[in-house]
């Protein structure tokens, strides 16, 4: 909890009968790029709105910079939000949009002019002062929304799916842009998205949420390589999630065949879930494989081929640069390091959290 800028303590929030957040606890370090990731309805946007001051939690506290701001209205909080649909003021010029917050705070004209110039330069839109928002592209509007927020020098910038409305190419460009901005400004970003790729690309820390609960907190590598449960594994990238039995330490039985692995401490003959990423499945000659199967689907994806292999009653998803035509008899092999063992959900609560796509 060192250097925690924001601390959410026991936050509970429901709308009517619908429980959105149930006893959520989360801290965010200074200068961190933290992403709240999850499917729609998981509570990530509500969390952000509680931080922004647009919702008040039913229970719990929001501590910001050492002070309790739970009941502080949005205009009194030293943080700013970048909204999903830009929310630019359409009847004002770009300069007026950016100056809005500064004018409210009665800053001098020269200060405001300098800030506008600086902010437009920062988002690579110098010279756009007198344009109207309608005349800008979606990406440009989003940059103006960011510029409008950061001229107020917030300690914390909240971004609510800011790239959701942009097309793929522009989205990727803006991801790099955001990383650059964060590094130049040296402030804390809290970013909400349902796009796992965005989360993996930009974040220092990812918080995976589902149905009001935090599923896992960790670095992008950590989340991707060692998902703690089937939901996380499934939500982060494609994967083969298979019910299995832990025979003993470092040995797991998957679909009737025994695979070597590196996990320990799950006990003996214990039912578990295993996660194997599609790029970690090796297709070899039938006699070399741990189990054998037949290729049923084949799609060319550019950098690799994606195949489905029917083996021991399970459709394995496989990504490989080597093509095997449909109908080929193949063997399947997995490196022990690439088998991720997870506990099966025990309580009903955790069950509810399960895969729902």
């Amino acid at each position: 909890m060192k250097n925690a800028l924001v601390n959410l303590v026991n936050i509970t929030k429901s709308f009517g009968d619908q429980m959105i957040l149930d006893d959520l606890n989360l801290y965010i370090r200074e200068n961190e790029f933290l992403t709240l990731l999850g499917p729609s309805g998981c509570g990530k946007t509500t969390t952000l709105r509680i931080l922004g001051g647009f919702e008040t939690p039913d229970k719990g506290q929001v501590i910001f910079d050492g002070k309790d701001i739970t009941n502080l209205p949005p205009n009194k909080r030293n943080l700013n939000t970048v909204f999903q649909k830009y929310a630019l003021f359409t009847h004002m010029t770009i300069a007026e949009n950016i100056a809005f917050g500064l004018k409210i705070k009665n800053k001098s004209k020269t200060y405001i002019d300098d800030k506008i110039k600086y902010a437009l330069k920062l988002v690579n839109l110098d010279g756009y002062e007198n344009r109207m928002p309608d005349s800008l592209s979606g990406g440009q509007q989003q940059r103006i929304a960011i510029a409008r927020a950061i001229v107020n020098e917030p300690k914390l910038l909240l971004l609510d799916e800011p790239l959701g409305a942009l097309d793929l190419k522009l989205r990727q460009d803006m991801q790099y842009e955001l990383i650059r901005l964060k590094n130049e400004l040296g402030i804390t970003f809290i970013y909400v998205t349902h796009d796992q790729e965005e989360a993996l690309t930009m974040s220092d820390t990812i918080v995976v949420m589902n149905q009001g609960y935090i599923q896992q907190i960790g670095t992008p590598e950590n989340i991707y390589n060692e998902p703690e449960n089937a939901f996380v594994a499934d939500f982060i990238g494609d994967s083969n999630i298979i019910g299995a039995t832990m025979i003993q330490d470092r040995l797991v039985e998957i679909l009737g065949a025994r695979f070597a692995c590196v996990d320990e401490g799950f006990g003996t003959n214990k039912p578990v879930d295993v996660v194997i990423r599609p790029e970690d499945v090796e297709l070899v000659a039938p006699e070399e494989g741990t189990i054998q199967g037949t290729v049923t689907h084949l799609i060319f994806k550019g950098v690799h081929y994606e195949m489905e292999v029917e083996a021991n009653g399970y459709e394995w998803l496989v990504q490989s640069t080597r093509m095997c035509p449909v109908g080929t008899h193949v063997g399947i092999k997995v490196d022990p390091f690439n088998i991720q063992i997870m506990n099966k959900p025990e309580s009903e609560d955790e069950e509810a959290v399960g895969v729902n796509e």
Partner: protein
Amino acid sequence: MMRNAARKIYIFLIFIFLYAPIIALIVLSFNASRTRAKWGGFTLKWYGELFQNKVILQALWNTLAIALLSALIATVIGTIACISMQGMKRRNRTILMGITNIPMLNAEIVTGISLMLLFISLGIKFGFMTILLAHITFNIPYVILSVMPRMKQLNPSTYEAALDLGASHMQAFFKVVFPDILPGILSGSLMAFTMSLDDFIITHFTKGPGIDTLSTKIYTEVKKGIKPEMYALSSLIFITVLILLILVNCTPKTEPKKEITERSKNSSKKWIAAVVCVILCIVAVFGFSTFKSNQSNEVYVFNWGEYIDPEVLVMFEEETGIKVIYDEYETNEIMYPKVEAGTSAYDVICPSDYMIQKMIENDLLQELDFDNMPNAVANIGAQYYEQSAAFDPGNKYCVPYCWGTVGILYNKTMVEEPVDSWSILWDEKYANNILMQDSVRDAFMVGLKLNGFSMNTLNENELQIAKEALIKQKPLVQAYVVDQVRDKMIGGEAALGVIYSGEAIYTQQENADLEYVIPKEGTNVWIDGWVVPKNAPNKKNAEIFIDYMCREDIALMNFEYITYSTPNEAARALIEDEEIRNSSIAFPDLSQYQNLETFNYLGEDGDELYNSLWKEAMSY
């Protein structure tokens, strides 16, 4: 090619169909001749007279004040309603939208009557305030209708974004939300202004004594025939409404789209500020003028349209210091419910014989004190009091003001034989050249008298015979009209018409070919008299007013202005023109005629019987 031409012709026809009446109106407003039938050259005279007519200017002023105030207030209320409706759940919002839309679809007459009833039950005094409240009420839905779509287009995040950037709730609304919905607000208030400007029905039901808007004024003026000034006024109203509607439809498109300069922005701000200032000034001046008019020494007069010389009212005010609040009605039947409902407390009214009888029977009148009215005692001929005793036994309630007969007006160039009987109205020679009165009692009077019956009969056989006669006459009749008899006869559009004697004198002045006769079978001798209703607030002033009307010089002025026969013997003696003084039309020797009668009040059942028979005759 063919299809294209056909399409153009079709469009052209539609436009002709839609706009021909209005073009006719506008053309007539520039016609120097008083009658519609002739084109007397181009003139702007009527527009000039319009702007010198104080009564019309006052009505114009009322109309503008009510339109501006009601639009302003309705805009504020409607906008606030939209804001809160936007915050509601979809279901509630839909329900509420439906509820606010209903008044727009509701028949105006229903809205008008329900507002009138509401104001009566709340005991609100009818006047400027009640019209204003009514207009605000029916304007709100129009504001909501044009603001709500703007509200829905609004990105809900912009408001939050403003808060996020440090704005308070008020700042966020006025700096961010308001400019976005402003086009909707502007077009909504323009719409409300237009609706208020041309409303007649609701105003008619909610107005009180002494106040008229343009539309109610025009309606009252129509009583004595449509004057060309009214064409001019109607043309101006049409043009104004047209311009406003064009503005309403253009506002949403004039948003700034691309780059705009700082200067143009400033000037538009100044423009809005100027408009607001003007509105505030008008409201302030108006507020002042209503306070000023709140004097206590006044008399509320309710009279037929065009039934007094306006100069007389000015003289009365100067001589007595009593302010006259003057209102007009078109028929006895329109006047009666207003007095009965008590929405308007008048001091003096001038109903006709049978209506006076009805009001006495329904205990709506109070007895007059003739000691306060020496002129009424001295100047009004005894025979007229005798006559009025038929409906006002003992002469307690009424002082005769005007009287006359109903007869046949004919054009000597079109009718060669002598006219002395109602039966000429059944002569097939004059098919399509006959004008009948379009009112039940007057029409039945002709039918009953023709057959030798009393015009007050309740005998069903007699009434059936009269009905059959009217049905038989129907194919010969050019039109059933009221005021247009006068204009049509002057214009030579018909040969024969049933008309009131007072109108006959006027028509003869305009067209020397016209002659008036009282048919030998007898006719209606009517009397209109001054009465004071039970709820009159200023009975004393009422009696001063009635007595003033009976002064010989004043009665003479009125006679010369309205040309209806006066019962004022002293005034008649002052008439200089011997021909008129001894005119058999204005002052017929009634002893020469037989079967003269005055209308009686027949009771509700009697009225109903006449009405149903009249309906049968007209729909036959």
